[in-house]
């Protein structure tokens, strides 16, 4: 059974149809890249999978581990192992990052019927993981993402991903706004999390990120559908030729 199976997914935002019958199958342990021109529906796919309010599914099905993902609440999806690394991580004034991490980890455990983490166990995990991602422990005492640089925000996303140990991570334009050093730290963090038990969908406009996070499969998304699927070489081809082939007939 595939980990994620999307069949004929259609979705709209503010009455505008964005996804037009999207099909995608991701097996356990695979890393899929989804590339495509601006406005092709990449971020919409990420938001529909997480259940963001305002994104209306008008047709099709999505299953995670055989379960109907679209029937689940936002928090339930997360507890079932879905994780979205946000393109624009949200700043939450007044909530210390540590408090947030702990609340999230324990909420997921509670939903899954697992016991809460003890304080020392939690602290140990956070400290170890932060160290691997070169995150200054001082940052964890500050409110979530408030006053963080672009790179720090993205690293904080990867820290959350590492701590929450999802089955399926969706990385939405994780490379945007990062300089090359920050990109490398983030990509290394993601690569450390690759495992036969964990799948990833890497959404990106540029091939650059895929030099660091090498995908198993590359898809091209255009006008709300997957129009081409290939191996990692497809990303190089797109980098060389651009997306013109996939947008040309739009002007026609």
């Amino acid at each position: 059974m595939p980990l994620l199976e999307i069949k004929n997914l259609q979705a709209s935002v503010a009455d505008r149809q964005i996804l037009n019958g999207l099909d995608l199958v991701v097996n356990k342990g695979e890393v899929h890249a989804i590339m495509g021109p601006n406005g092709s529906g990449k971020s919409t796919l990420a938001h529909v999978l997480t259940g963001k309010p305002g994104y209306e599914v008008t047709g099709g099905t999505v299953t995670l581990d055989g379960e109907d993902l679209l029937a689940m609440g936002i928090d339930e999806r997360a507890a079932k192992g879905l994780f979205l690394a946000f393109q624009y991580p949200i700043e939450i004034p007044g909530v210390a990052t540590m408090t947030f991490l702990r609340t999230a980890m324990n909420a997921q455990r509670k939903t899954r019927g697992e016991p809460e983490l003890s304080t020392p166990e939690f602290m140990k995990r956070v400290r170890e993981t932060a160290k691997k991602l070169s995150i200054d422990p001082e940052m964890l005492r500050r409110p979530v993402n408030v006053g963080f640089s672009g790179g720090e925000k993205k690293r904080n996303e990867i820290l959350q991903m590492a701590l929450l140990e999802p089955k399926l991570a969706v990385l939405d334009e994780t490379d945007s706004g990062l300089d090359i050093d920050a990109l490398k730290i983030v990509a290394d963090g993601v690569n450390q999390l690759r495992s036969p038990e964990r799948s990833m969908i890497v959404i990106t406009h540029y091939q650059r990120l895929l030099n660091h996070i090498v995908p198993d499969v590359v898809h091209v998304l255009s006008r709300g559908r997957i129009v081409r699927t290939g191996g990692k070489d497809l990303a190089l081809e797109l980098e060389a030729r651009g997306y013109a082939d996939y947008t040309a007939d739009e002007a026609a």
Partner: protein
Amino acid sequence: MAQAATLVKTEAEQRLAAEWAEAKARLAGPANLREAAYRRFEVAGLPNRRVEEWKYTDLRALMRDAKPLALPPDQAMLTRAAEAGRIVSGIKAHRLTIVNGFLAPPAPDAAATDPGIVTSEIFAYLADPQLASLNQLGGTLPADDVAVALNTAFMSGGVVIQVARDALTERPIHVAHVFAGTAAAAVYPRSLVVVEPGARVTLIETFEGPAGIDYQVNAALELIIGDGAEVERIRVVGEGSDALHLSSIGITLGVGATYNDFTLTTGGAVVRNQAFVRCGGEDARIALRGVSLLRDRQHADTTLVLDHRVSGCESREVFRSVLDDKSRNVFQGKIIVQPDAQKTDARMVSNALMLSPDAEADNKPELEIFADDVQCGHGATAGALDENLKFYLMARGIPAAEAETLLIQSFVGEVIDAVAHEAMRDILAAATEAWLRARK
């Protein structure tokens, strides 16, 4: 038009007149002061919405009747009052209890444990001509304010606290106000705190009473802060569900004095917290902050008048309210910068978080600036919980209710964090949690 100006006396006003006629001869303390105050009330009547200062808290409409003056507490009431101020019982403090507007006997002798603090019953203090001449009662409060006038006319008792020059008091002073009656009554506590130059003190005030009784509290406090003194006042208004609570504080600050003020309002049907602050000493620093957590049909009003009279003072006002059901929060903040108050730095912010479409927030900032080299700013917002923040938390597996709780706690917590007294910060955070747990 002349007819329209003379309003018919309401039931409450008639009742207050009857109480005055009946009680004035037996009331202790300064008769002339009382008489003058009552005359002011008699002319003005209870303020309605056409009186600008009371525009959003129409006392004439909200105060349907006036309750009889509370009598000095009997033994049963004193026994009930023994539990007063439990919310801060974890803090070692000099504790004074004011029951139904009367300082409970025996007045604890704080001087026995801290030589820097002297307390006396207010009328005993005023009876000593030498002491009373030092600090004229009413000097810090606007005589024409109706709540102040009524308190002055009917004041029942209270405490005078003197903190000696350069005394660095260790324990806070806790004044626990409690209504311990079994039938509705009106209480008028009046207190005076004099902090002499260079002294440092923390003052905690709690107000409470039983649910289901529509008792009325009209409290006034005058606070005189000497040069270089440091005062923090933390107040918890946790009145019973049906209570009317009016409180006024008048504050004067000396040169280089520091004042930090925080009020948490969770209780009472109608609450009006008013503060009148006079920055009369150069380079004083003042911060007024508060949080109101309201539900059902609660109405809470914070009205501030900050008068910058001399140069170089800094003032900060930060108020946040969380409004559920059909509750209503009013914030009126007036900052006056007098011609001599150059280099004033004054900032005021009020934010309302609306948890219900039926809640109401009224924000009225007023700046009157007569000096040209000053920095003044104000901001006011009212809005629902940010859906993007909630989504982010939920996308990390946090259920909706818990996400909302976390966001409300942080909204409130940012203001509580400015309280200097650490143990009080924890108590205020715990009170917020308790309020959130009771959310339907």
